[in-house]
């Protein structure tokens, strides 16, 4: 049985005609006041403490050594991330394989490289020649085709890329694995039922959908990597930080040069964060949006450019 509900126009109390007394947040006022005082003190000391030596900062900000260091930091970040992403994807796929040897070795790799300090790994790779003075390529336990001195092959750059890339691969493996696991099992089943090959299912059905989960933390890793590269200063690779160190070791302007390096790190991080914001905004909403495809990425990028020029 249904009963109709009578609609009446009873007068309702109206917020607009009544006075509203807002709640007073005394705690917040106090906190704000304390913070404002602290900020004022910080700004004051930045400008009045002569030992910050802002003129020295300005002098060295674009000096060629620093710019070369910045360039090294940038390509090292990009290359190490590229190695990390490719390696991480391979490791994640191995990890999810039903073959226990494949999944076991991937798990062991991740365990080892996440479980030891990156600094140690970098120094280790750099000193590989102490462990293996001669490196060679050939048939296992059989003849060798190429061989050479490890010292010549493992330059600082190779050591840095090995250290940063392999370590990143271990972290990316976990991110990609989480992404693949986030795709509903029905997707794989539907594709299998259509007779698609495992490879095609992975590249065409699973990975594109996993991107939604993979991309935000990858942006985070990228920003992290930018600063992690500064560890290569221990093997004397002239990155941004090491370049600054080289200069202050001769002119003893330690603080201003560290400020120079920090400002550059902040600038690049800011640019990356802005990029991350846009990429994440795109992917966080993709529950009701089509997921990632290259064509769509291109469209987004060109639209962004159009908006930027408009």
């Amino acid at each position: 049985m249904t009963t109709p509900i009578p609609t009446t126009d009873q007068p309702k109390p109206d917020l607009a005609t009544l006075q509203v007394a807002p709640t007073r947040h005394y705690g917040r006022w106090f906190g704000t006041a304390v913070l404002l005082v602290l900020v004022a003190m910080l700004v004051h000391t930045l400008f009045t403490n002569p030992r910050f030596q802002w003129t020295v900062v300005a002098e060295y900000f674009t000096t060629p050594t620093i710019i070369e260091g910045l360039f090294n930091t940038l390509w090292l970040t990009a290359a190490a991330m590229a190695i990390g992403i490719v390696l991480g994807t391979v490791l994640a796929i191995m990890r999810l394989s039903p073959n226990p040897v494949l999944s076991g070795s991937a798990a062991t790799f991740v365990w080892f490289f996440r479980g030891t300090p990156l600094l140690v790994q970098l120094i280790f790779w750099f000193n590989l020649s102490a462990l293996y003075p001669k490196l060679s390529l050939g048939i296992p336990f059989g003849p060798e085709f190429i061989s050479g001195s490890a010292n010549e092959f493992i330059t600082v750059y190779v050591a840095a890329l090995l250290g940063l890339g392999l370590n990143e691969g271990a972290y990316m493996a976990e991110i990609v694995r989480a992404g693949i696991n986030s795709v509903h099992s029905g997707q794989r089943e539907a594709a299998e039922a259509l007779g698609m090959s495992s490879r095609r299912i992975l590249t065409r059905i699973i990975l594109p959908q996993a991107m939604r989960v993979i991309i935000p933390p990858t942006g985070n890793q990228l920003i992290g990597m930018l600063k992690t590269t500064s560890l290569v200063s221990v093997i004397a690779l002239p990155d941004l930080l090491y370049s600054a160190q080289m200069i202050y070791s001769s002119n003893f302007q330690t603080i201003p040069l560290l400020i120079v390096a920090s400002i550059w790190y902040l600038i690049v991080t800011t640019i990356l964060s802005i990029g991350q914001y846009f990429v994440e905004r795109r992917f966080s909403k993709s529950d009701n949006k089509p997921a990632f495809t290259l064509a769509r990425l291109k469209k987004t990028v060109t639209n962004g450019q159009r908006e930027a020029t408009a």
Partner: protein
Amino acid sequence: MNAPATTAVESDVAVECVAVQKSFDGTPVLKSIDLSVPHGQVMCVIGPSGSGKSTFLRCINHLERIDGGLLRVAGEMVGYREHKGRLHELRHHEIARRRADIGMVFQSFNLFPHLTVLENIIEAPMAVRKNQRDDAVADARRLLDKVGLTGREDAYPRMLSGGQQQRVAIARALAMRPKLMLFDEPTSALDPELVGEVLSVMKELAAEGMTMIVVTHELGFAREVADTVVFMDGGYIVEQGAPAEMFANPQTERCRDFLGKVL
């Protein structure tokens, strides 16, 4: 594998099961399933939740691997090849090739959400059958027409109602030109007013002579379309017969109980 030594292939049988068994972690789900579905016939499978209906369907296209018995589709053993009296497990691409001839429609549609309706349909014909894109697209449009979704090629699955999504899923399966169609509760996830549109597509398919195995709770559909109804419970086929007879006069207590609850 305790496969019987029969090698004779009956060509008029689309699906043949002999003592099919399947366990999950030691828990038997299919205890012994015997049945055969002739070409061009529609079989509806009914039974209480957990009785192994989905598992049985999934065994037919080797999404699950059977633990015992014999299962043939179109005369070919599912998942194995017989050679000199020994069974050899099929390689992945051989399994895939056989699956391509079997269409499957899921309760939860499982359309690919990142692909448009058209891309969903042409993906497998292009990737598996190596069809030219133009041919695949033309075929997809014909199928969309058939399921009553002309003009929705460029929609993404999330933009469609459940009934429309399920009809796309049927079109996607048909695009592979399967010889056998498996439906696992295709209307259970749908609002009542959308059930009819999916069932009518399936009726049309049955009328065209498609061999179909349909797990369903839609007894009206079973009565109208099925040649045989199978009642499954506890890992066995408890009762089997023409729908009118079974619904009017169930032979077993369990079947009577079940029909009493569903009807």
